[in-house]
């Protein structure tokens, strides 16, 4: 299994500075192929910054971000982004395009054959359980959950090597959220997709994550399986974080 364990994405002592504010301090991180890595931590810990470094929306102040062993640079970033799906809170759908046009925007731009696009859209609708007739609706006409399904389809359209999800369920009400969690998990299992998911919810992290990366104030506190974090915490903060989240879920 050497091949599957090879890291797809590697961050080497990456730091990110926004003016005087230090968002990340010398991060080392490996994203393994075919697995779900969850970045978790209190808000402002830098977890979203890592996603935006991976797809080149941000450039590291120091250190390198590598994709398949090659550094992500402004020169190759556009090409690399087409191999990464990106789904954000509330979907980030373009309001002037229908759901369908949002999904196929990039494929059409790249001049993919129409029948191939059509087939892929039908496949994705089935996968995400999104009704075909809903493709003609505009984002404002969709519910929050449906918008996330469309956003997920858009992210998966080009069969990316990795799917980056930034709080994808953060804006949904608890019922829809729990239903979608279950569906997402089954989708991820079907696709054997490499996933990097950002959340602040420990329950969600535990549910999805093969590897959980716990962060605090711009650095990684501990990474490992849920069992590792629970049984072998490296710092008191790990236990505190886990306990705080559990007491929220089961008061």
């Amino acid at each position: 299994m050497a091949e599957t364990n090879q890291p797809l994405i590697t961050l080497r002592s990456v730091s990110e500075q926004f003016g005087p504010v230090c968002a990340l301090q010398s991060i080392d991180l490996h994203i393994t192929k075919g697995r779900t890595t969850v970045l978790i931590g209190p808000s402002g810990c830098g977890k979203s910054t890592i996603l935006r470094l991976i797809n080149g929306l941000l450039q590291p102040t120091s250190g390198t971000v590598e994709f398949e062993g090659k550094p992500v640079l402004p020169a190759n970033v556009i090409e690399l982004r087409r191999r990464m799906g990106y789904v954000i809170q509330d979907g980030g759908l373009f309001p002037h395009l229908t759901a369908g046009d949002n999904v196929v925007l990039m494929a059409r731009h790249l001049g993919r054959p129409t029948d191939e696009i059509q087939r892929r859209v039908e496949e994705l609708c089935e996968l995400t359980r999104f009704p075909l007739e809903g493709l003609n609706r505009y984002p404002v006409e969709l519910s929050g959950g449906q918008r996330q399904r469309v956003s997920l389809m858009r992210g998966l359209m080009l069969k990316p090597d990795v799917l980056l999800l930034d709080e994808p369920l953060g804006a949904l009400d608890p019922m829809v959220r729990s239903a979608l969690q279950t569906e997402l998990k089954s989708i991820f299992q079907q696709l054997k997709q490499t996933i990097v998911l950002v959340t602040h919810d420990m329950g969600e992290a535990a549910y999805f994550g093969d590897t959980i990366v716990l962060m605090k104030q711009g650095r990684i506190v501990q990474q490992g399986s849920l069992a590792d974090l629970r049984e072998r915490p490296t710092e008191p903060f790990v236990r505190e974080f886990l306990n705080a989240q559990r007491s929220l879920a089961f008061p």
Partner: protein
Amino acid sequence: MRTLLLLILIWAGTDLAKAEQAMVGSKVFTESYVLGEIARRAIENAGVTCGHKQGMGGTIILWEALKQGAITAYPDYTGTIREEILKVKKEVTVEELRTELARQGIGMTHELGFNNTYALVMNRQRAGALGIRKISDLRKHPDLRLGLNHEFLRRKDGWEPLARKYELEMKDVRGIDHMLGYTALANGSIDLKEAYSTDAKIAENNLMVLEDNLNFFPAYKAVFLYRLDADPRVIKALKKMEGTINEELMMKLNAEAERTKDYSLAASLYFGEKAQKIAQGRTKQMAGKIAHWTGRHLLLVGVSLLCAIVVGVPLGIWASKPGIVSQIIISSTGLIQTIPALALLALLIPIPFLGINPITAIVALFLYSLLPIVRNTATGLQDIPVPLRESAAALGLEPGAQLRKVFLPMASRAILAGIKTSAIINVGSATLAALIGAGGLGEPIISGLNLNDHATILEGAIPAAVLALLVQFLFDFLDRFLIPKGLRLERTVR
């Protein structure tokens, strides 16, 4: 952009093609219109086709137009030529003026026969009550309200030097249009105004001309200025008019023009033709005229707006990016907006290959239209939420494609609103184009203003207002096609 240039060229070309062999200009007051019309007839009688650009503006605009060849001749006065055009001392003789003008390629006829000097006038009864006869009497009445036309206020032989010479310290001096000033004098909103000594209004309104007891006003003998390279028949026709109009006749012609609101009737009176007015066909003629003005107006608005869109949208895109360039673009287009339209026209005229023609008007309108388009484009783009910007980039769209496929459509409502604002302002501002002889609906407005004739003003003002409304409707209609449906739904759903 290339088709646009082509359009302008074709238009300029048609202008030239139908252009007459000679063109007379006139300033914006009755006497100038009448003299201009008389000259046009005299030139046509000599066998040269001739047009008349009526009421093109003040002295400097006419002078520049003559030098640039936009017009062949126009009537002016020796005092104005001395003080305003050549800016020489009072002692310089008329012959010396002629030599100096010839050096610049311009000829001057001998006197037409009357002196139309400036004068100060006031209501006869009020003057009697206050015991005012001469200008120096005003020293005792510093509280009288003066309404002087703008040219007189600033002239070298105008108000300020006059006040200095007579040691007047008037407290209330305002600028007002020459013809409107007579109305203001009649209804008592001002006490004193400037006048031309041949103004028909002096006798009509029973006004008193204050005696110039210190001999301040120079002589203003009427003459024609013409280009020395004009057709010899034109020059001969103009010279034939020397010494043929005395003060009495000029006052009569002015009165006739103001009574009938028709300069060509007054001109006919000069030629001794029977003044005939064909009542029939007048409405038809008017409809034709309004259609012609409206067509010209639309052309001015259309071409300038199109240029403004072609230039303004890219500038707005550029200005939407943070940085110093954005600041420069927004503040310089804003700066243009603060220049009064009239001043902008006057500033553009001396620029080579602009001059007195419709292109100058289009350039001015274009500059005025820029700000709303640039600013709305920039704000529309800046208002796109960061998560959506990042989503467009994260998909892997190139920057150009992000702009084309996502950002511009999302900003379309703001951009169209900017274009609509520009178009409506443009319809209004284009009335000023008539001041430099570019035509349009401003033409009847300005002549109406000079004749104090409300009906003529409305001939231009009503179509202009209707046009502004139509433009508004047109854009509201276009919104439905040009703003993507998803954005329009957003408004109704939320």
